[in-house]
């Protein structure tokens, strides 16, 4: 509760980005653990207790589809983007790039 304003704001900033990163990463199929590893390899560490429930929520919203399949003698639940998820990812990425461009412009103007 007594976290610094920076920590709180960083958390808020991260929350939105995580969904975007997960959707982007799931253009290729993954199960929970390999998804977490892939995100970590790309520099985005995410707690298991945040990622796995998030996958369920995104699936409930129809953005992901999942399938139980056996791999290495073990049943695993594989996730990938649904049609709606692909569409939403494109829209979100547009927003993301627009915001980035705007922010760059704002920062440039404030320097002048």
């Amino acid at each position, binding site marked *: 509760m007594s976290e610094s304003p920076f920590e709180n704001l960083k958390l808020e900033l991260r929350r939105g980005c995580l969904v975007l990163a997960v959707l982007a990463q799931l253009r290729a199929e993954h199960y929970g653990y390999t998804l977490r590893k892939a995100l970590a390899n790309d520099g985005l560490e995410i707690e298991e207790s945040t990622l796995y*429930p998030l996958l369920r929520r995104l699936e409930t919203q129809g953005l992901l589809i999942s399938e139980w399949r056996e791999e290495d003698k073990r049943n*695993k*639940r594989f996730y990938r983007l649904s049609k709606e998820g692909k569409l939403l990812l494109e829209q979100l990425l547009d927003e993301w790039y627009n915001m980035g461009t705007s922010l760059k412009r704002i920062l440039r103007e404030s320097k002048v």
Partner: protein
Amino acid sequence: MNLLNRYLQAVAKCLPSARRDDIIAELRANILSQMEDREHELGRPLTEDEQADILRRYGNPTIIAGRYSEHNLGLAFGRQLIGPELFPIYKTVLIINLLITVVVLAGVVPIVARAIGGAITLTRVLMPLAVQFGIVTLIFVILDQNKGRLLDKWDPRRLPALKANPEDGPNAQDIFTFIAGAVGTLWLALTPRWPYLLLGPGALYLQAIPLKLMPQWIEFYWAIVALLCAQLVLGFFRLFRLLPRRQARIMDLTLKGVGLCIGLLLLLKAPNYVSSQYQEVAVWANLSFLACLILALAINLWGTGRLLLSLWRERDQMVPARQH
């Protein structure tokens, strides 16, 4: 993997039963993959401490189960008071607490109102509910504000031992429940012949203050004894797994339904269960019986509701999982 199983058991306890098996299977696959990866890095099996470290990183079972909540609800009043991790537990505790309060009020308020000669006012009924709501909410707000300190200090090695699998043979608890049921049924069947089994030395007062039972009492009494005997037979079948689990649960539900019917029929006879030449004794005997009956009905209703819900959810799980 005993530690992993104990961890998953603790998570499962806090998950909604409809999605429990699916979530636990997924968590198990993910954690096992992570442990195998680590073993591969180290080139040897993990020690218990290393397994505990991995599980600790996953987080407190209560917190992780709360994050699987579908609706992600919380309690807020301007700012968030109870977060989504604790909200499902808060909701369950609050419902149980309020139901118990309602049952107790239904039994106690009429008796108190009659004893002090006052009316049953809305304030008398609502005030205890408001107080219970306030206390439970306050406890959970304090818990939520300190959850970092309280819930993060946990050790996977201190998680409860694994419970026996219901599909395995009889365990000590099943045997105890069956024996207790048999003793209870026998005790009830013998009380008309030996009233001191029910009242102890107080049975002597029956001779001094003769209580006359209502005429239909004997039919109700034997119906209850027959119901207990049927439950005992079902208990025997369950103990030795002579019936499929779902079938046994459906029979249990049927017997609970019969019990509810007997209870409701008895309730219709209220408050003339007993009569006596001493009016005051008869009034108190009838009120005490009525209070016990309401409590027994509430417990039966609660058990029946839970069993019905559980069977309904099991029915959902019997449908093959959605494939994409």
